[in-house]
């Protein structure tokens, strides 16, 4: 079987005397394997020492390692001296990261291929067989361990002295709760504090109605939006345009005459008469499905599409969902124009804004 060494007769069964001077190192290796129940059944050099083939392989591996050195040096040189600071336009910095990647990649790949070639081509091929020793734990051992554990349990005597068990349990339960308490107690936060799930930045403050403002904070006059147009508006309060009022962004739409009429009619049907001002309607931009901004407004069909999961809302019919996974219409913001001619919210939204939840009324 083994192509290496045939001498000292390796008798099966009795272990070899590893101090026998006649043994080669491989004999000892094989004896070690045998003691671990491994039989090396096939061990065969892939290249003959001193041949052209061997020299060639050695050259290949060496070339890989040298390439690594070269690429790694190139990486360092580029890392240190290449202009890396960002400048707009076509600076040399555009090539900084790609060059680092290429040099580092080549360095690592070359050392990898070098090692692989060394291991796969230069080292002898072998087939060894090892016993799995599965189910090797004798039934007797199982029994002994089982009995030992049962004995331990018996010694504790919980069966004979039940009070110990009961009192331990009663004592430990609260300890478990103690471990959980700081985490739960620290993290818990009332979701309905200040009625926060039902209110937005448009809730009137001190009887003052809140203006609708643009991204830059400027208020909006009706004339600012042409028919068929729409803009995103925010509550005109401090930080109204920031993520602190993540539920407040609203779409203010100037509907065309016939769409506005249909819209008003449908509004009245739902008891939302007076929510529009003239031909203007304002709907929450936060999708009632998963909370993405439903921001793709299709002027021709008056549909609002949410780009995250493609729910579509029909603006002219109370923004009710007509396609996709959303099941609830976008809440409508009642609007009017104040004495100075700017849009204000008549009141806050009358339905909760954003994704649905269990206790939504």
């Amino acid at each position, binding site marked *: 079987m083994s192509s290496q060494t045939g001498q000292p007769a390796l008798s099966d069964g009795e272990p070899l005397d590893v101090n026998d001077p006649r043994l080669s190192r491989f004999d000892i290796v094989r004896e070690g394997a045998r003691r671990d129940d491994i039989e090396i059944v096939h061990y065969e050099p892939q290249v003959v020492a001193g041949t052209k083939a061997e020299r060639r392989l050695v050259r290949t591996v060496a070339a890989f390692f040298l390439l690594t050195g070269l690429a790694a040096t190139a990486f360092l040189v580029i890392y240190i001296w290449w202009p890396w*600071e960002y400048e707009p336009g076509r600076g040399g910095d555009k090539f900084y990261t790609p060059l680092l990647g290429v040099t580092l990649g080549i360095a690592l790949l070359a050392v990898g291929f070098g090692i692989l070639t060394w291991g796969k081509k230069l080292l002898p091929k072998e087939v060894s067989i090892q016993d799995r020793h*599965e189910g090797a734990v004798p039934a007797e051992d199982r029994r002994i361990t089982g009995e030992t554990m049962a004995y331990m349990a018996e010694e504790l005597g919980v069966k004979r002295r039940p009070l110990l068990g009961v009192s331990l349990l009663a004592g430990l339960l609260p300890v478990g709760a103690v471990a959980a308490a700081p985490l739960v107690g620290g993290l*818990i936060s009332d979701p309905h504090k200040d009625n926060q799930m039902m209110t937005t930045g448009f809730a009137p403050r001190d009887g003052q109605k809140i203006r609708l403002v643009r991204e830059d904070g400027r208020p909006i006059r009706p004339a600012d939006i042409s028919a068929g147009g729409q803009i995103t508006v925010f509550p005109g309060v401090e930080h109204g345009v920031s993520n602190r009022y*993540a539920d407040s962004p609203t779409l203010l739409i100037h509907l065309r005459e016939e769409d506005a009429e249909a819209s008003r009619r449908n509004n009245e049907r739902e008891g939302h008469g007076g929510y529009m001002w003239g031909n203007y309607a304002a709907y929450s931009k936060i999708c009632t499905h998963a909370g993405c*901004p439903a921001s793709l407004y299709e002027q021709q069909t008056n549909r609002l599409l949410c*780009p995250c999961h493609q729910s579509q809302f029909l603006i002219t019919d109370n923004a009710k969902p007509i396609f996709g996974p959303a099941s609830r219409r976008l809440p409508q913001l009642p609007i009017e124009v104040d004495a100075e001619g700017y849009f204000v919210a008549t009141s806050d939204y009358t339905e909760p804004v954003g994704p649905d*939840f269990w206790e939504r009324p």
Partner: protein
Amino acid sequence: MKRRKFDVAAVPGNTARAVDDRFQVATPLRRLLNKVFPDHWSFLLGEIALFSFIVLLLTGVFLTFFFEPTMTEVIYNGSYAPLRGTPMSAAYASTLDISFDVRGGLIMRQMHHWSALLFMAAIVVHMLRVFFTGAFRKPRETNWIIGSLLFWVGFLAGFTGYSLPDDGLSGTGLRIASAIMLSIPVIGSWVTAAVFDGEFPGTIIISRFYIAHVLLVPGLLVALISAHLGLVFKQKHTQWPGPGRTNGNVVGERMFPRYAIKQGGFFMVVFGVIALMGGLFQINPVWLFGPYEAWVVSAASQPDWYVMFLDGSTRLMPDWEINIPIGDGYVIPPLFWPTVVLPGILVGISLLYPFMEARHLKDYRSHNLLQRPRDVPFRTGLGVMAITFFLILTLTGANDVIADKFHISLNAMTWAGRIGLLLLPPLAYYVTYRICLGLQQHDREVLAHGVETGIIRRLPDGRFVEVHQPLSAGKEHGELEYVGWVVPKKMNRLGALGPAIRGFFYPIEKPAEAPVSPGHPPVEPRPDREEITSGENRP
């Protein structure tokens, strides 16, 4: 004082003796060095996951030196001109700094992201290998469970990491995650308020995700990976059937030196590929997305690939809202089913599958030999069914992009996904089952009648027949048993083709005998094979 001569050659021996005197490692070390591993290319898929994880740890530590995990609002004043003067969170600003103002920071960020994607991909492919070959069967159910958990913990690691930069895209993902938590019946709003400390987005979520991403989740991953590898080591690797291979042994190479060297080389190759990807392929260019603002989103917002199936299932879900008319009324939103219930079911099925199959087959024995997918058609069918299900959902996760690029109606894409999700998986099961049976039949046929030689012989009565090369020397057909391993089906597998001469410009060695790898059945070329090539000489 007389100075003793220092014997360099004795140093290793003396050191080894000194170590062994103290720790008694000689015997266990020998066992370790001698441990036999079976070899097959498909056993390396899991290693890719392990190696990517190491790269993740290395690059991740680098990133923590520069990342600032807070949502404090700052005005950006770094090198990237288009965003200068923009108010943004410190997390986003420091991510921009890593990309533009830290030397070599961008490649580290990109390598980190790519290795995360590779990590998840390798886990999935490895899992498929284990599934299709039946490697999860007793005694390895525990390791299958750990592996499945690794996918979901990896998912968590990916999502928390992806959310950290607080850019426009990841913020939208976080918004959806908050909506998913909100959709859980009864406790939804409490869970969301606990995680975000109030309403979305709050001011603390990035800090919480940060500690989860750099400590809690990686800690869990390290623990699970260690247990996974420990069990592979303890239970020994499975192997393909083949000559000399039984359920009670392992046939392969000893761990040292060749096997270990190949592993080391492979790690370097994986690392090198990640470095190339990190340098050459842009990933998650957060500076293009801008800071997260609740009202900004663009079309074609896709998450990382392993999250896309959930995005897809969410898109396909019809608008079925359940109203419970008690008191003020309660709601179960449609979002709950595809994002909480579906993953829950998937986790449950994947964890329990080994036990369900054992129960179904009433097979409670230990199996250390792998099965070829064709030999267990129902399992292979189920696997392909699951892949089809996953692929449809993943494609649907990008259905807006597909609709846009191919000028298909978006609504049509959604409906195609809905119908396809119901029809295609069972169809895939049926087709796979039939293909498996066909392959099985062909194996039996070759074993019974031999390999097709491509030689057409004309019989005296004018008929043409193809000559077959029987695989056994026996006279009677069908005496070879199928043993669950590759059946040679081409003449060159039988040595009919001369071995290739190696060397680029000139031969570097004498043409060797046809190499027969130990994994292949010991098929010897028949002595009378010359006779076949000259077909007409035969009676």
